[in-house]
């Protein structure tokens, strides 16, 4: 590759392009099929999330967090309420904590399903994508059962939840898990061990450990590079320290550690771990407890600031909240995992072929709603 040089052409991938996962624009310099430079341009989905938050009350921020990473709204809610509860020093009861963990892990499965499916779609395999969406639908049905919404839930509130889980939710969730566990193997068989997919993703877009760390990449992308770092274990929040689960890391089974295949495979392994956590949380969930018990009548945190980070399906999500004692945040800053994942794009994807660039983009699992905010 790269022995013969021709004239370079500038190609705009996006903002309307089927593989950019939203309205991202990648400006790539190509020499034939070989890509020499990639410049991501974003802002097409910028909705002034942080500025909006300075003008609405603390409760009203929650629906905005939903809309940041619209594929893992529960986890976005979770991060915000963890930060707020730390700022206001609220302790929620056991039942709420358990329900939150179940929801966040269900959301992680849903998000990883979409990611693995779309990664297959980026490589041209259409069927696994629909299989993944079929199973994701079941999770969305569970969410709809719980709070009436399928995408943007506004479910976790500061000090509690909007609703208790409905009667029969626990049984339905167990039923789903029993159905879903064999489906993970099915998805793994059709994608992860497919010869063509391995050829297309192993050794492609290798992200070494040091690059991942210096760019601030987190979540499955970091773990695929071989770093055992998961906030659920390393900086435990909520009740994650009570559950037994592993942190899967990339081992370079089909190629080098940190290649596209590892990033994709880590997500499949994480779905299995999430299933484990949900089973434990459902089993140990207390039968009674008011989910509105510690809900403050009026959210007016004391003067001060807080930074709390949680593990979303995409990685380390941080909320920095500065309070001046009024019911409206003085400043809210969000550290989004997909933003850092996108920033590493030029570093790991330059020099590969055009098809590989889109495979690498798919393996990073970015959501533009969260990048632009």
């Amino acid at each position, binding site marked *: 590759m790269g022995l013969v040089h021709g004239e370079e052409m500038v*190609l705009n991938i996006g903002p309307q392009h*089927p593989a950019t996962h939203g309205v991202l624009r990648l400006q790539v310099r190509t020499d034939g*099929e070989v890509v020499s430079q990639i410049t991501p341009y974003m802002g097409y989905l910028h909705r002034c999330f942080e500025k909006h938050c300075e003008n609405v009350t603390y409760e009203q921020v929650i629906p905005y967090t939903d809309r940041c990473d619209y594929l893992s709204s529960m986890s976005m809610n979770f991060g915000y309420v963890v930060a707020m509860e730390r700022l206001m020093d609220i302790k929620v009861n056991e039942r709420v904590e358990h329900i939150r963990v179940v929801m966040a892990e269900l959301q992680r499965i849903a998000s990883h399903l979409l990611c693995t499916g779309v990664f297959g779609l980026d*490589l*041209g*395999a259409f069927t696994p994508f629909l299989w993944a969406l079929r199973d994701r639908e079941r999770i969305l049905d569970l969410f709809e059962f719980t709070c009436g919404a399928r995408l943007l839930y506004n479910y976790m509130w500061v000090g509690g939840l909007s609703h208790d889980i409905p009667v029969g939710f626990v049984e339905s969730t167990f039923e789903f898990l029993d159905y879903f566990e064999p489906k993970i193997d099915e998805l793994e068989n059709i994608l992860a061990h497919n010869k*063509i997919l391995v*050829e*297309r993703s192993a050794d492609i877009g290798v992200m070494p450990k040091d690059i991942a760390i210096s760019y601030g990449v987190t979540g499955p992308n970091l773990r695929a590079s071989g770093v055992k770092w998961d906030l659920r274990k390393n900086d435990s929040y909520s009740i994650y320290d009570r559950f037994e689960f592993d942190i899967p890391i990339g081992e370079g089974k089909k190629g080098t550690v940190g290649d596209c295949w590892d990033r994709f495979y880590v997500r499949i392994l994480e779905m299995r771990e999430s299933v484990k956590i949900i089973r434990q949380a459902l089993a140990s969930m207390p039968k009674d407890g008011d989910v509105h018990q510690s809900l403050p009548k009026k959210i007016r945190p004391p003067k001060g600031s807080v930074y709390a980070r949680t593990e979303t399906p995409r990685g380390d999500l941080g909320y920095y909240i500065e309070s001046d004692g009024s019911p409206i945040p003085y400043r809210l800053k969000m550290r989004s995992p997909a933003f850092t994942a996108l920033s590493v794009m030029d570093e790991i994807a330059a020099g590969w072929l055009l*098809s590989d660039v889109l495979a690498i983009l798919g393996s990073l699992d970015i959501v533009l709603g969260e990048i632009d905010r």
Partner: protein
Amino acid sequence: MTVDFIFEGLNQLFPSFAGNDIFLILAMLLPFAGLFGFITIYGFGVIYSELKVSSFIQDKTGPMGQGPGLHAGKWGLLQPVADGLKLFFKEDIIPASADKPLFILAPFLIFIGAFISIIAVPFGEKIIVADMNIGIFYVLGIGSLAVIAVILAGWSSNNKWALYGGMRSAAQIISYEIPAGISLVVVIMLTSSLSMQEIISYQAGGLFNWVIFDNPFMPIAFVIYFISALAETNRTPFDLPESESELVAGFVTEYSGARYALFFLSEYANMFVVSAVAATAFLGGWQSPFSDFLNTPIWSMFWMISKTFFLIFVMIWIRWTVPRLRVDQLMHVCWKVFIPIGLFNIFGVAIWTVLRG
């Protein structure tokens, strides 16, 4: 041949006008009308089966007739008709910066290329539009016409995605013609004829006389031909020229409406041609698998069409199962795997034929 056959028939039916020029023109036009009708029906059938087979694989229902009224018909049978009508009633858009004459020419060229290949496909001992003595050579030659159309489409659209698609397609189709040709050469060596009918009559006498079971080299040749045929028709895993997640829609990016429909149809027509050639060259063509049993002209059509449809079904099955290759891997498979094996195959079959006498 069919034209002679119809001409003779008309002469006998109306002895007073025997030898009339109109009869000759009629005799030439009738097979084409029949063929055109066949392609139309085949198009609807194959699009419907693609929808239904993919739905089966993807765990969904596909087009279904729901409730009263004509909602895609019973079992969604009218879905291809609705799709076709939609495409033909769409606004015809030619981009301002496109090279207009070439842009208009390309879809016709690809459709003609796909359509006139079918005249050499035999459906029975007498049921063939043109029984050329170089039939298989003709089909391969006409098949290359598609490359020109695809490059024209890619170039004249004046769009970078289309250009990428066109260039990829040119490299791909030209490369894969070589393994496809090489694996057919093996058949020609065995049957010592280029004529489709003679290749088929070589395979008379039941399943085990088919070329694919003739000697141990033939299954290899069949697999190489079939995979190369997938590549030539731009089907997954070789759909790089129109890979929707990379190149938006490749060389058809700027096409819409009826012009797009022509590209779409010719892809399916090409699938038919390559499957029919594979069935002819390797699977006994219109011969019944049970020797003389069920080998009447009507049954011969049935055998030919069912063999072809089986191969088309396999193509659909592959399309909805596997991901797409990358450009360099595509070339690797062609030049470093198929061509060496194909050349070895020629060598092997030559020795086999000599030894067998």
